[in-house]
């Protein structure tokens, strides 16, 4: 069992590819990994809101109502709208002006964030986030026949909520013939390959407060993703702490009683959507959202709560603060 392992920085995060043996008449794993790396950089160049020459920025600046868009941009917009629909509007891709207003105007990759403990101490009373009553995301449409994105001019779109998961899923589709693979785009992970079903991968879940590996999940297929407040946390212009997960109803950073959420799902983009929606929903709503496929919630006090299938899976205590969960799927 041999795998090619490629790690690099892209999309403001670390990207890692593990690719097993190729199927008949398929390119060697090293070649597939290099091709995947090029795709990730092209994906980022087209869809980053921090790159002023990206197609996404061009869309957001375009004064027309109907804007010609590449298949990749249309796919990204559809993924963002599907996430909004799946989360009942909590994962809202149209909060571009709000996130910029909160101070997140450029990439924070490599920047040390503010202290999560201090931020929690100074945060307002906890409450679940709610969808924007105006539901601006419903005014976006993708016209594949015309190759256009349709929306009211001035209404911005941010692919940040689903971009990494989408990139992982698109790459997974291209790696389908390999014996096993992992595509890890900054913690949004997609797993596949027939051999992975027999010998599942172990995926560690990082605790957002300690940075330690809190749990291990064994996965043979599908996606897993984590959202948390421990990264992209800063002091706003008003001196208050801010982060990148906004309450769509208020446009302000959401303080819900959770600092992290990890979700399992069929795809990485669905896992990413569920993890964000769970964190925004707070403990009670998050528990309900993750119940079906399983996941973790990390509370403000650092307590880790296993939800759904993971809570029911047999646990083996390991030395230190580590536990091994039963295989999923």
């Amino acid at each position: 069992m041999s795998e090619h392992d490629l790690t690099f920085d892209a999309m403001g995060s670390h990207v890692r590819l593990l690719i097993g043996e190729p199927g008949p008449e398929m390119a060697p794993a090293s070649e597939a990994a290099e091709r995947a790396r090029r795709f990730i950089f092209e994906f980022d160049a087209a869809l980053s809101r921090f790159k002023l020459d990206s197609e996404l920025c061009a869309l957001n600046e375009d004064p027309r109502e109907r804007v010609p868009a590449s298949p990749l941009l249309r796919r990204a917009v559809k993924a963002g709208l599907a996430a909004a629909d799946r989360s009942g509007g909590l994962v809202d891709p149209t909060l571009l002006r709000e996130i910029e207003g909160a101070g997140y105007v450029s990439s924070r990759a490599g920047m040390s964030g503010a202290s999560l403990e201090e931020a929690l101490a100074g945060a307002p009373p906890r409450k679940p986030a709610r969808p924007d009553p105006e539901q601006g995301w419903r005014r976006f449409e993708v016209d594949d026949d015309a190759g256009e994105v349709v929306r009211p001019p001035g209404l911005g779109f941010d692919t940040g909520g689903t971009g990494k998961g989408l990139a992982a899923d698109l790459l997974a589709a291209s790696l389908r013939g390999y014996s096993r693979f992992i595509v890890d785009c900054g913690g949004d992970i997609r797993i596949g390959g027939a051999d992975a079903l027999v010998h599942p991968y172990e995926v560690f879940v990082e605790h957002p407060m300690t940075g330690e590996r809190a749990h291990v999940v064994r996965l043979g297929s599908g996606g897993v993703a984590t959202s948390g407040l421990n990264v992209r946390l800063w002091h706003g212009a008003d001196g208050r702490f801010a982060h990148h997960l906004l309450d769509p109803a208020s446009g302000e950073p959401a303080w819900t009683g959770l600092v992290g959420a990890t979700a399992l799902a069929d795809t990485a983009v669905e896992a990413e959507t569920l993890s964000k929606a769970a964190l925004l929903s707070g403990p009670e709503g998050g528990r309900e959202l993750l119940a079906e496929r399983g996941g973790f919630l990390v509370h403000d006090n650092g307590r880790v709560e296993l939800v759904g299938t993971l809570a029911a899976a047999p646990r083996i205590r390991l030395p230190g603060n580590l536990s091994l969960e039963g295989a999923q799927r």
Partner: protein
Amino acid sequence: MTDPRRGRRPGPGAVLWGSIALFAALFALLTYQLSIGADPSLSGSTASVTGPVQVRKVIKRRIVTTIVPTPGANSVSTGPATSSSYGASAEPVTTSAS
């Protein structure tokens, strides 16, 4: 009335020595087959050895390559990457907020 056939049954000594002789004969036959490489337990297998047996020593090999982007070679900016091939994943994959 006594059945006349019962009187012709072999005695216990004959049965014992006959069994030992049969066992010895079969054991000798199997030993001979094994010694010439014709193991009867393998005769049903479809696999056949057509050449000399190769003994392979598995050596765990790890190749680490650093790719440094060539300025101007690509319009897309790419950072350094590390690449390696090995038998089992060395670093576990971790999901965390990003």
